[in-house]
């Protein structure tokens, strides 16, 4: 049973940068366990909803717009832009690292 439970919850590293960490208690790195929605697969769309519910403590509109991230936020899955995979439909795997980073404009 324990082995099965462990298989269900997926361990991920989520990182927030460029100011987005201010929305999650100023913590940049979050090691989390997320249950796949249908007991099998975990997509980015589901993860975003999970992040909004579980990690974002304030101003969710600074993180999301509709069911995706707001304009100006880059999403990186294992150091690759999610535009190079299936964006919201990307299926995550155990130990994936997902980075959410707001683009900076200062100089």
């Amino acid at each position: 049973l324990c082995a099965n439970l462990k298989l269900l919850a997926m361990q991920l590293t989520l990182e927030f940068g460029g100011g987005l960490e201010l929305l999650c208690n100023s913590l940049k790195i979050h090691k989390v366990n997320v249950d796949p929605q249908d007991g099998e697969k975990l997509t980015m769309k589901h993860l975003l909803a999970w992040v909004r519910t579980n990690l974002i403590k304030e101003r969710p509109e600074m993180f999301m717009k509709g069911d995706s991230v707001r304009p100006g936020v880059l999403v990186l899955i294992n150091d690759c832009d999610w535009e190079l995979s299936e964006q919201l439909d990307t299926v995550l795997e155990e130990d994936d690292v997902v980075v959410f980073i707001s683009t900076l404009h200062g100089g």
Partner: protein
Amino acid sequence: GVSSNGQLSADMVYRYSRHLLLPSFGVEAQANLLTSSVLVIGAGGLGSPALLYLTACGVGRVGIVDHDVVELNNLQRQIIHNEANIGRSKVESAAAACRAINSTVQIVEHKEAFRTSNALEIMSKYDIVIDATDNVPSRYMINDCCVVLGKPLISGAALGLEGQLTVYNYNGGPCYRCLFPTPPPTTACQRCSDSGVLGVVPGVIGCLQALEAIKVAAAVGEPLSGRMLLLDALSARIRVVKIRGRSLQCEACGENATMTAQQFRYFDYEKFTQSPLSTSPLKLNL
């Protein structure tokens, strides 16, 4: 400096000897640098080290655009300026520092704000553009101008304790709008003057901007196109990530893009981004 047969003068051989000794740089790359030109937009936190290193390394012509004057609260990070130049135009102050380091480089002063009305004319005289500005409308405007004129854009940013760097519009790679087709909400657009910045963070990013400009100008190495460098100063973590390629749907550089010189001139970047090109910083209340 460079004669018609590509030979360097004796003074130049001596000045650039550390470059000429490098097997992967050498005379050819130095000659490329000496005949290249770079426009640096913004003589602030990013522009300061970028201008100093471009000039020291021997870029042939360096242009500086800024409309601001030096203030005391700039000096915590804008190392090209000094106390004696407080109140003086940043362009004059920066140009003087560059000329003092390398009198053989042509330094061109553009003491004006970079706007759609003068952007094309100024930028068309340079090979490579460094975006060292501090606001969202300028970043879209500079990107579009680079796309219209076909110039590679070395884009850096720094805020707080973080920095970002990439090369846009280079060799078929993405432009700024490919990554950011829609401007961010204005509440997400913090500036150094609003939110602060550790002085040495734009120092690191500005140096890396000079490095990428030198690589493009000298035609050596692999410029940071299609990749982005992310610096987290507090944790001393630097990652280079892979970003998307050119977007066919991009409104600036895509297949059906209509961004022309004519359209650029009349595009309202302040309205598009709902942010001003220039603001007075918030007052600090401690």
